[in-house]
């Protein structure tokens, strides 16, 4: 087959598949038409809106951000709808004798056909109209719109092609568990962004837009704006960047496609023996104490990195623990005390320790034959958590304080954080022994059916208990803040909070250990349901 002939074939294939799909059932046709109408209506509204925005101050920032978000949307779309477009699934073409280059060209043109690209085209056109000033800017816009569209489509295709292989492997399924996280953290960011935008004007976007207009596809719109400002050099650079990005993405896609069509599919492939190196005798392991403590700490830390469920939980905690205090401080609405969020979010990881082991807990259970063993096991898990949490909570607290410039309150905030962390570790250890529940390893759910109540008791009961346990330190903080001469003594909260937290942790571990040792079979049964 010659190179130019294949493109119309693939486009016609896409159109007829689309048509035949609609012919299949009335419901499907209605759904498709409805979604098309809504999308086009939305696109038209956006186009009108953008045109109306023309001439406003700082509109270019909003537009650049909009296009950047659009690009992000194209990038993540294939991850959430992997089977979205079967016409573009290259594995269906594996048996045909096609060369990668014409195939890429054909698939690219085919993927430009559809509502998504049309929607993007409307938005991009509107963006150009909104920011372009002068004939030169519009001329650049004519070039910028197709370039940006190309970046979007190529981005989606490259991500999809890279994932076809990934999603069939174990690593891909691991990633799928993590993708929920992207939404959770993304929602937090968007939430804060919208709040900020609502409270102050569009100029708030300027710093973000200053960065984003160097990122394709937003850089294409940045170029249009730069020309309008007379910054021709900047415009040329931005345009070049966009072109380079689309070329790079196309090359990546072509490479992924070639690999897909020539290599066996990931599910039948043996994973290489060198995938994970033996790290038993490196770095951290040597610093850890011997015996159960070091061994259990090492295993816990390995799981934070290697187990998708544990990793997702940790990343969520780390992200939210950082986002809430820092974003609030950034918006100027924050307080140093918000920094306790980091300690609190990470403290949650101490809850349901044995549930995190899944039924592999039997291996631990077989080695615990006394209260002492149980104590050392729980202490090791708390230690593993502290190894990450202590520096992290300190960092977040210092960062928040720095952003607010409220240095006198730093010792106080740190003391409260450590007291809270101690209380969370204590209640976490105790509820791990008292209310264990299964964490299913597949899918997004974190509680096995029938154990939701148990999980609620464990987490929320534990958190309320932790708050109550912290009350003395909180009371001390309030008293010192309220008292006239208390300011000089506020630093006392750091040692007091730290010691109090440490004492609580030790007490919690001591109380949890005998219960754990006594209830090993019951815990195993409870965590084996997933």
């Amino acid at each position, binding site marked *: 087959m010659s190179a130019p002939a294949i493109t119309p074939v693939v486009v016609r294939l896409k159109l007829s598949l689309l048509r035949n799909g609609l012919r299949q059932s009335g419901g499907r046709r209605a759904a498709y038409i409805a979604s098309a109408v809504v999308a086009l209506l939305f696109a038209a509204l956006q186009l009108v809106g953008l045109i109306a925005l023309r001439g406003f101050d700082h509109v270019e920032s909003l537009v650049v951000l909009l296009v950047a978000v659009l690009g992000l949307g194209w990038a993540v779309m294939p991850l959430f709808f992997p089977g979205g477009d079967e016409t573009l699934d290259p594995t269906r073409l594996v048996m045909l004798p096609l060369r990668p280059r014409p195939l890429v060209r054909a698939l690219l043109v085919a993927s430009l056909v559809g509502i998504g690209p049309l929607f993007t085209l409307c938005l991009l056109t509107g963006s150009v109209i909104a920011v372009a000033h002068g004939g030169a800017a519009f001329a650049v816009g004519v070039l910028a719109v197709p370039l940006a569209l190309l970046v979007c489509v190529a981005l989606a295709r490259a991500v999809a092609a890279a994932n076809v292989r990934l999603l069939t492997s174990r690593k891909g399924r691991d990633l799928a568990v993590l993708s929920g996280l992207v939404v959770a953290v993304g929602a937090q960011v968007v939430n804060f962004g919208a709040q900020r935008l609502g409270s102050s004007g569009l100029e708030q976007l300027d710093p973000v837009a200053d960065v984003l207009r160097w990122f394709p596809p937003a850089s294409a719109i940045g170029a249009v704006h730069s020309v309008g400002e007379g910054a021709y050099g900047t415009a040329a650079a931005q345009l070049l960047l966009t072109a380079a990005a689309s070329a790079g993405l196309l090359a990546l896609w072509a490479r992924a496609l070639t690999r897909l069509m020539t290599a066996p599919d990931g599910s039948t492939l043996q994973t290489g023996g060198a995938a994970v190196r033996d790290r038993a005798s490196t770095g951290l392991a040597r610093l850890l104490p011997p015996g159960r403590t070091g061994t259990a700490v090492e295993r816990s830390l390995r799981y934070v990195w290697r187990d998708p469920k544990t990793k997702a939980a940790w990343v969520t905690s780390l992200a939210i623990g950082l986002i809430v205090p820092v974003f609030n401080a950034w918006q100027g609405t924050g307080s140093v005390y918000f920094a306790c969020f980091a300690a609190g979010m990470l403290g949650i990881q101490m809850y349901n320790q044995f549930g995190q082991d899944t039924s*592999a807990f039997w291996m631990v*259970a*077989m*080695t615990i034959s006394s209260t002492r063993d149980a104590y050392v096991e729980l202490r090791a898990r708390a230690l593993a958590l502290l190894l990450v949490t202590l520096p992290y909570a300190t960092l977040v607290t210092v960062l928040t304080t720095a952003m607010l410039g409220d240095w006198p309150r730093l010792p106080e905030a740190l003391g409260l954080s450590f007291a809270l962390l101690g209380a969370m570790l204590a209640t976490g250890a105790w509820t791990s022994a008292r209310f264990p529940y299964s964490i299913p390893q597949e899918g997004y759910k974190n509680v096995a059916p029938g154990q939701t109540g148990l999980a609620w008791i464990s987490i929320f009961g534990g958190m309320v208990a932790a708050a109550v346990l912290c009350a003395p330190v909180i009371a001390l903080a309030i008293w010192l803040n309220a008292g006239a001469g208390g300011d000089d003594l506020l630093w006392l909260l750091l040692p007091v909070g730290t010691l109090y937290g440490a004492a609580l942790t030790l007490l919690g571990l001591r109380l949890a250990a005998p219960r754990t040792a006594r209830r090993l079979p019951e815990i195993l049964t409870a965590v084996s349901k997933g």
Partner: protein
Amino acid sequence: MVDADGDVVGAGATGTAAVRVRGLWKRFGQQVAVAGIDLELPAGRFIGLVGPNGAGKTTTLSMVTGLLRPDQGTVEVVGRDVWRDPAEVKARIGVLPEGLRLFERLSGRELLAYLGRLRGLPGAEVDKRATQLLDVLDLAGAQHKLVVDYSTGMRKKIGLAAALLHNPEVLFLDEPFEGVDPVSAQTIRGVLERYTASGATVVFSSHVMELVESLCDWVAVMAAGRIRAHGPLAEVRGEAPSLQRAFLELVGAHGRDAGSDLDWLGGGSR
């Protein structure tokens, strides 16, 4: 042959019992999984616990190894009560359960290193034993691969290595050959035979009679939560041509031959 009450008649000649079970019961809601088992397993034997699916083999082994709390009854392993003296018992037994996970995000070698150290063995000794076990079990090439990427046979083998690491006196294996390819099965078999030859006891469950017959010198037959027969293989087999036949007679399934119900099936008129 031994009667259905489970009286100890044919216990091995070696004398001491590796496992002694008295009046063991377990119910899950309405369902009785184990209905009063009395059993004495002789030490130094290759013992098979056979029975159809759902006979209560896994429940029994879980209770014997301390992974599941019985409703009633006592279990002694090497003369020590499993529930009152867990320290002594856990140090002397090795377990390969069925249907429970391993720490699958560790590599094979890391798993052994982890478990050996949890059991309190010195690090250098753990590493030495792990290397040898991985070699013997044909896992040396996959030792740095995560267990989650192992095949069923490899999982059983790494589980066996984990169970053997602390040189236990009694080894409990729940369906060790289930889903295992012939090559791996032969490897597992070789290791187990070498292990029992040194005087240790292996107790394993299976529903494959031919396997039990070729491996074990002592069997206990389970059905519907009870021990139907136990003793040296030859005694339990009795007059029957194979353990399979003897087993079918014991559980009362011998009358259920594909009799005349399907007489239309096969050659002749359509």
